């Protein structure tokens, strides 16, 4: 029992992201409406962003901005243990904006689909394609 609680405390963050990610995956596979699929894709992306940010965390570390850094370059030694890993933050910083941009493209495509088929329901679109 003690082992289980220890495992839970050490890993529950990953389980939350996996749950979120699977919600997104399920929405992308099973939902009929294209906009709901796009929302599922966004949930998936959010799960990955959270996953990366949690990789960067470190016990006893603060945000990756050097304290008293202004105007005193190299005057004091910086210890790696005091700051969390900046790299995942960098990667996710760009990923958030890119995910907004891809959301825009996805919505643009959905608008084109709607203009052509007058519906966003996947089965109705497929039926219209088969008729032709």
């Amino acid at each position, binding site marked *: 029992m003690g082992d289980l609680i220890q495992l839970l*405390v050490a*890993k529950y963050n990953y389980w939350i992201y996996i749950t979120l990610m*699977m919600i997104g995956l399920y929405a992308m*596979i099973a939902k009929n409406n294209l906009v709901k699929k796009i929302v599922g894709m966004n949930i998936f992306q959010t799960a990955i962003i959270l996953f990366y940010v949690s990789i*960067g965390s470190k016990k006893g570390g603060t945000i990756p901005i050097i304290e008293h*850094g202004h105007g005193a370059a*190299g005057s004091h030694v910086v210890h790696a243990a005091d700051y969390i890993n900046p790299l995942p933050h960098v990667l996710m910083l760009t990923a958030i904006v890119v995910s907004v*941009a891809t959301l*825009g*493209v996805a919505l643009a495509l959905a608008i084109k689909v709607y203009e052509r088929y007058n519906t966003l329901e996947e089965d109705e679109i497929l039926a219209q394609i088969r008729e032709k």
Partner: protein
Amino acid sequence: MKITGLIIAILAGALLIYATADFPGWGDAASPASTHVSPRYIEKTMEETSVPNMVTAVLADYRGFDTMFETTVIFSAGVVCFILLRVFGSEEPKESLYRHVLTGVTIRVRAGGEIPPDSDDFERIDVMWTPFDLIIKTMCRILIPFIQLFGLYVIAHGHHSPGGGFQGGVILGASIILFAISHDLRTALRRIRERIDALLCATGVFIYAGTGALCLLLGLNFLDYAALASILGVDPITARSHGIFIVEIGVGIAVMATMIWIYNNVSSRGKYDEGL
């Protein structure tokens, strides 16, 4: 389909949860992610770039290529929305609505008809028009300058506090989008025209790539900002800090313009006629 999807999602989730057994614990200082390249960044950033905010330094200097192409991705997304949706040579709408400002009377103008062009008494309104809302418009008028000021601060202060080109650019773009939502799309388009917006979008990417090319011309590697020292008249380490700032401005402009561009295209379905 629903059952299949559920089974796939549960199977994949179970596999991933099983795989977390090998993952490092949350906040483990000895995890692979925090032991190889991360200490190098944390300990050397200050002496190599004189930027206290490591995220900004890694973003624009150590991983400059990555960020440059991310900016290009955003630019391409804006262009793709434009190409997919924009309708030119607009077939005139069947009827457009005008509102007499003084009396509040709405008139419909059929295709081909026009109101007197020099008349200030009429304003064009959307089909889904709602009456003038004092609270929303006044609040937005008060808020938008401060949002923009904050966006500029976030861009300019990215060296010393959380911030940078991406965040500041999104805040600036959001202020214009807020303006377009609170008034209407045509009013916002009169402030930032489509052509200017597209030009700004390209300018941002150009500033970034141009800074890199300038470094190349000055004899160092692409995006090695130390080369700017001779132009800026500072030592190479401060030159890196300034180079990062120039690049962040480019990113901010590109992100702001792209957000506005995408919003304009998607909300008006490329007609630039009526927004949300």
